[in-house]
Every structure is written in C-alpha cells, then in structure tokens.
C-alpha cells in the first residue's frame, strides 16, 4: 500500500530484460573521448567516453524587476532587479542597467532565486512507472560495483523530471545508483531538461561522483545472500579491501603514465576508484549514523581520498563540529526519520545545527515526490531551527537549496547562485518560497524559459505520458 524506505527507491528487481536501447542521436564524440596515447598524466585512457551533448535552449534577454531576490550565496535584495541574457546571469542588484528591447517581467510580490540543485535523486534510474522493467538503480549483484555508471540506466523519459522542474523549480540534479552496494557506481549530474539521450542531459563538465553506502542496506542485502558484508564491520572490511586494490591499480597506471611501457590491464571499476584517489571523481556517501561517518572519514584518510558529502546524514547534527573540521558536507532530509533503526534519531533541527556549527549543509530528496517540494522542506527545517533558538536568515537558508549542493558537486563555479557569468538557472516564485502557499511561476534553465505556469505549452509532457490519460494536465 505504501512505499517503504528501507532503502530508498530500492525495488532491487533483477529481471533479465533484453534491452535494445535507442541508438540515440549520434552525437559527435568530443576530442576527449578518443583515447590518448601514454605516457603523460591523465592520458592513460579515455576519461570521458560518453561526453555531454547538452546544449542550452534559446532564451531572450530578460529583466525581472521589483522582485525579492535570494542570490543563493546568502544575499537578499528587496525590490531588486536581475538581468540575464545568452544563457548567463548578467547582473543582479537593486537597479540594473538593461539594454533596450529586453523582455521585462514585473516581479512585484514575487521572489527570484537560483534554480534548485538536488544532489540526491534516482530519477531516470527508478523512474515512473516504478515497474520491474524500469528498475535500474541498484546493481545488487555484488557488494562493490564501481564499474556501473548511473547514466547508463537513466531513462530520459521519466515523467519525474518534468514534475521536478514545474513543481519543484529543480534545474540541476545528481542521479545516483542506489544504496544496496558499498560502492554503487558512478553518478551523473544532469541539467533538468528533457532530451532524447542521457548524454544530452549531462551537465557539461560536471565531475563524476562515486556513490558509496554505509550501514544497514549493504549489510542486509548481502547478509541475506549469506555473504560478506553481513555486518557493519563487514562493510568497512570489504571497502578497505577494495580501496587497497585501487591504490595498487592507480600506482600501476601512474607508473605507466610517467614511464611508458606496456599499459596495465583496464579494470572499469578500478578506473572509477583511481579517479576518486586522483581527486577527479567526488565521493557521495550514503551514511546515516554519526559513528559510521567517523569510521568512513578514518577510511578516507587511510587511503587518501576525500568525502565530498554524506547523504541521508540523519545524525550529522551529532558531529556537526567534526564535519566542519573535515570539510565534509552533509546532505539531509528536513524531517524524515523513524523508518528504520539508523534513522531513529532524526530530528528536524539537523540542518540548523549544522549551519550553526559552520558545516556545509544542504537539503536533498532521494525521492520523486520530495524533489518537487525541496523549498518547503527547507522552510520546515529553518522554522525548527528558529524555534530552537538558531536564527538563520531566509536568504542564507537558500544556500541549502542551490549553492551548497553545487559546491558538493563541484559545479558551484557555474550554477547554484545568481552571480554574473553563471548559468541563468532561475526560478520566479509566485510568493515567498518558504510558504506552503507558494508555487513556481516560471523556471529558466540556461536562460531558456522551460516552465511558465500561465502557459500550458511551457509544460513538458514526456514521451511516456503522451497519449496516456491525463497527458498535459496541470499535475
């Protein structure tokens, strides 16, 4: 009757389907895709064999006036103006010089913010409808599968992308493999724009992530198969074994790139782990409990990698000081708790306590419904914090929605705040975005107006929905 969250979105169904995928649009391969010959640093093998073919859609130079602006980096401008053109933010301030002929939008009574960045989504990999044939999020066949890439499961027609855009104002999201495995595979960061291929959704130049998982999911999934890991100590043991191999693998490739000779054998999973050790792939670690996060950080020090963010960090508030010291972000829900033992200690003040301690905090959804209301989730967390005596301004809380997730994804130089030169990813809200009574009015991605609440034609209908009951409804 209802979805369970024992591990999020995890109908770990392994049906043997004969996937005959679309051939795609046949995008031209970028130069980076062609294997360069060693020796030479970074030249051992292709690092980007499935490159982004995303192209921004056209927009018109636009000036929003008389609007309250949260710039995404803690700044707030009342009755301000924002100009964007050619897909980029041009200027934001109390008054902005705009060329003649720009499209002017009166933002009276409305709020303008950066588009929301969800660092934890399974859209496309666990799409709607959630049927066995489309259950592509957990390669739950071995405790570590760093060889799988989420982008190779992404179904670009998932109706969830459109809902996240229209109802949620989400313009960028990271799609992760699920949490059945200690090392679930590579994530992919996408712009929230429908495309015919996953490559055409990929955020240009965004680093890859490695999804890792702690705790109850891996031990349950593999323990029930009668194999290691069946305990938390087994989790760390298998991780360490795997990292030890990765260090060795990287040493061989480094030597080859330095000295030449015969290239070592490729191992697709080890490529990913070597990428983490080299700092080019960011670790996104599912981990609920404070004590387990500390174990992971010790492991990261042991093998020389950095954890970019702990996800589902329900107990992050207990070690907010430690996370700050380690420069590790925490991606959390506002109030999800109590659905399994490792979520039993969840409290709604988690984000506020992290913020108070100076740690890098952010909201995330892990959910096709929650992603439509991340602004509301932050509103609840903010209010809980204020009731506990932690005063955080609204505009600062917006960092939890865009700038901090962009930082933890390594793309904060391009999106996540309304600074000149950055992507024109924006949401115009029809009221205060922390009110339950507010909805997105317009959403732009790279300056292209991709949702307009007043225009039924600026409302995406995925292939799957076309011709089905309810297609094109307001949703």
């Amino acid at each position: 009757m209802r979805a369970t969250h024992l591990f999020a979105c995890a109908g770990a169904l392994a049906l043997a389907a004969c996937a005959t995928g679309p051939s795609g649009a046949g995008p031209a391969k970028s130069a980076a895709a062609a294997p360069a010959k060693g020796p030479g640093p970074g030249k051992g093998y292709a690092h980007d064999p499935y490159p982004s073919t995303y192209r921004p859609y056209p927009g018109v130079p636009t000036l929003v006036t008389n609007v309250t602006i949260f710039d995404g980096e803690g700044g707030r401008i009342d009755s301000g103006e924002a100009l964007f053109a050619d897909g980029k933010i041009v200027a934001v301030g109390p008054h902005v010089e705009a060329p003649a002929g720009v499209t002017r939008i009166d933002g009276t009574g409305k709020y303008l913010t950066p588009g929301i960045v969800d660092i934890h989504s399974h859209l496309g990999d666990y799409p709607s409808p959630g049927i066995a044939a489309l259950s592509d999020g957990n390669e739950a066949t071995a405790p570590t599968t760093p060889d799988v890439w989420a982008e190779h499961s992404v179904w670009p027609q998932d109706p969830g992308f459109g809902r996240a855009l229209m109802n949620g104002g989400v313009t960028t999201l990271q799609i992760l493999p699920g949490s059945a495995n200690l090392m679930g595979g590579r994530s992919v960061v996408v712009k929230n724009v429908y495309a015919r291929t996953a490559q055409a959704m990929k955020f240009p130049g965004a680093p890859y992530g490695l999804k890792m998982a702690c705790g109850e999911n891996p031990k349950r999934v593999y323990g029930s198969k009668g194999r290691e890991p069946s305990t938390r100590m087994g989790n760390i043991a298998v991780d360490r074994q795997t990292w030890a191999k990765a260090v060795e693998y990287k040493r061989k490739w480094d030597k080859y790139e330095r000295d030449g000779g015969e290239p070592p054998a490729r191992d697709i999973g080890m490529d990913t782990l070597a990428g983490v050790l080299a700092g080019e792939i960011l670790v996104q670690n599912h981990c609920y409990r404070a004590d387990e996060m500390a174990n992971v950080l010790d492991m990261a020090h042991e093998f020389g990698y950095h954890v970019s963010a702990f996800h589902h960090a329900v107990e992050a508030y207990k070690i907010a000081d430690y996370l700050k010291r380690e420069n590790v972000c925490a991606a959390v829900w506002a109030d999800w708790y109590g659905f399994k033992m490792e979520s039993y200690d969840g409290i709604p003040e988690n984000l506020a306590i992290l913020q108070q301690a100076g740690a890098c905090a952010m909201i995330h959804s892990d959910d096709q419904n929650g992603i439509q209301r991340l602004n509301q989730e932050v509103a609840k967390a903010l209010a809980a914090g204020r009731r506990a005596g932690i005063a955080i301004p609204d505009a600062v809380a917006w960092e939890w929605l865009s700038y901090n997730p962009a930082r933890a994804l390594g793309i904060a130089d391009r999106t996540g705040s309304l600074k000149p030169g950055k992507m024109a990813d924006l949401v115009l809200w029809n009221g205060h975005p922390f009110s339950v009574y507010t909805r997105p009015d317009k959403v732009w991605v790279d300056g292209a107006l991709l949702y307009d609440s007043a225009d039924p034609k600026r409302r995406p209908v995925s292939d799957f929905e076309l011709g089905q009951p309810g297609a094109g409804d307001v949703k």
Partner: protein
Amino acid sequence: MKALLLGLAGLIATAPAVAETIAITGGTVAIGDGSAPIPDGIVLVRDGRILAAGAGVAIPPEARRIDARGKWVSPGLVAGLTNIGLSDAEGIEESNDVSARGAPFHAAIDIAPAVNPDAAILGNERLGGITRAVLTPDAAGSIFAGQGAVIGLGAGAPPVLKARAFQYVEFGEEGAQLAGGSRPAAFAVLHDALAEAEEYRRNPTAFGGRERDSLVKRGDAEALLPVLDGRQPLLVHVERASDIRAVLALTTRYPRLRLVLVGATEGWRVAPEIAAAHVPVIAAALADLPERFERLSATESNVGRLRQAGVTVALSSVDASAPAPMQRNLKQFAGNLVAIGKLPGATGLSWGEALATITARPAEILGLGGEIGSLRPGRRADIVLWDGDPLELASAPVALFIDGRPQPMRSRQTELRDRYLTPQEGALPKAYQW
C-alpha cells in the same frame, strides 16, 4: 530557547484539569469542519468536551481563561491511514506488527491490541499537532488486511478510541498480486469470502474453517459479517478509474456495504460516479506521478476535483513516499492544496476545506464525526494552539489538549535536539546530559 520553554511551561500550568470549564480566548479559531477561520474567537471546554467555539461565545464566570492572542486554535489533526504505533520503526522487523505474511488469518486480524502508546514516534508526531490517528494493518498474503482502529495520542491515556473501526482490502495492482496474479482473482476472493461469511451466519456450528486448507478461516468469516451488514466500513485501496468503477459496482450485489475508497488517484476521472454512490475517499494529496500504470492520470488536482463533484475527501499519507511516521506533514499536504488554487488550470481547496481534510473529514468517514475532528459542540476537546496558521510550514503547536488534558510539549526528538544543540562534548560525555 530557555525563554521559549518557560513560556510553554507557563501555558501548561494554566491548562485545565479535565473536570472544569476553560475558555481559550483571543485566538484565530478554525473549527475544522470546512468553515473559514474566525478571528478573535473563543473555544469553551467543559469536562473534556467542546461546549462552544466561535465568535461571541459567552464565557461562564467560573471558566479558567487561556490567552491565545496571536495564536491559532484548531482541532487536533486526525492522521489518515497510517501504522504509527504498530511498530517502533517500520524497518525494525522485530518490532513491526503492521502485517503478518505468515498468519493463517486475514480479515480476522484486529490491530487494536498491538497499539503501543509509549512508542517514541507517537510522542514525536503528537508534537506536530496529531491528536488522533486512523491505524490500518497492511495486507499480506490476502487481499484482506484485517481490521483497523482509531487511536488517540494522549500521553498516559489508553490509546484505542475505537477498535475494529473498519476492514481494509486491497484491490487494483496490489490486490491482484495478493490474490494470485489478476484483478478478477481478487474479486473472486472477495465474493467467496463474503459468501462464506453468509454461510457462517446461517449455521455457525456447521461451518468448518478450521481445516489447514480451508480458504476462509472461521474467524475471517465471522469478521466479515459486520462488513456485509454495513456496520463496519469497508476501506478499499483502489487507484485506476476502471477499478474504481468495478469496486463501486459491488454495492449492486451487496447493497449494505459501506464503501470507502482509499488512494483513488484516478478518482477525478470518475468523480461524478463516486459522488452519486455517496462513497467517501481517503486520498493522497499530492500524488502527481504515474508511479504505477494504475495511476497514469495522477494529478495534484485530484482532491479538488473530487471535492468539486461533491465527494467527501480526507487526506492520508497513502501513496505519498514520505516515511510512515511523518503524519505531521499532512498539514503541509493540505496547505499545498490551497496553493494550487492559484495556478491556472489547477483545482485546489479553500483553506477551511483543506483543514477539514485532516480533521473533520477523516473522523466523519470513520463514523466518528460526532466525537472527534472538529471544535463543534459535544466533540472531545482535542485542541491545538499553534504559533501561526496551522497549514503553514513554519507553524508548530505551542500547546496541545487531548480530551481536554494538556499534553507534554517534549518528545524524544526534543530531548535529542537539546542534547545536541551544541554538538561538542562538555566536562562529561553527552550521555550525562539529560
């Protein structure tokens, strides 16, 4: 923080014992029955029941006054179908009494004895304004899940307000799977079970139902009699428009069934038929994705359109993907239904109607509208004082009463919060801070 706590303690100190008259004055009063909120209203309570609520209520001289100026006063929220209190956490199998896949019984299952009023989650959710909850077992091994209960969340009070409040059945995709693989099989199971119940009624002593291979156990047949007679509502989980029609048609064969549809994501497409059948709906507010083939036309306008057609609708976290404990977020769902009223093409609810979907309507649907769910005279004094509009995201209770009894404003979550407001350890480990 300290000042806030002291303020709340003050409020509780002035709160009533059960056997007395109190007047909550000056607040914005929301009755919960669908009407608009009343500024500067009065709620009068006597002996644990509502005496009067609204504007211009005369305050008897003996009444103890509680000043609610600047606050909102509403009935306690009645959480729709949920299983809080039936486990310590859904994923802790050892503690979970929500379903029983290996049990020989199905319709006979009665969850009332399993409710644990001390479950930490009940205390946490109470602080979100939840005073009553409609608990259901989940189906496992049969389309019949068993009999649910309506409970109170009052601290130290017996939890069960009404046991065996309804029978719960799965149809649609899930029912088909439980019945062996098809929708028609699910209907066959239902018809057979009801026929067996009639058989049991005609001659209980001759009825078997104790054999290992009997399809309908004796206890199950007995449990279905009140369903057949309409003394116990039959809650049916069903989503697809065509499935809803098939379920509504059951009343031609069993005219006394008191059907309630649960889910009904595609209800808006057959709303006039549901209204004509006088069948109420317990729906998800915001299910707007085709998460299953039986929910292809999902839209957040479903509840509004059902309401516009004249259907009685309550909200539930059924079909919402938030975890089961999150009943406090029902008010967020209700608030969103107000919000979509502003969107071109969408159908929402008025504020009063939205509040009613989580107060009076669930109570009415379960036949308890005379007892709980609103501040109308005679109802149990389940009252929440909020620091703002109860549907707003930032609002929270500042005081709670259940049956007129003031409730603690602390929970396991507030204990954790206070321990870790400063995460660093002090002179002693955190374990000494309590």
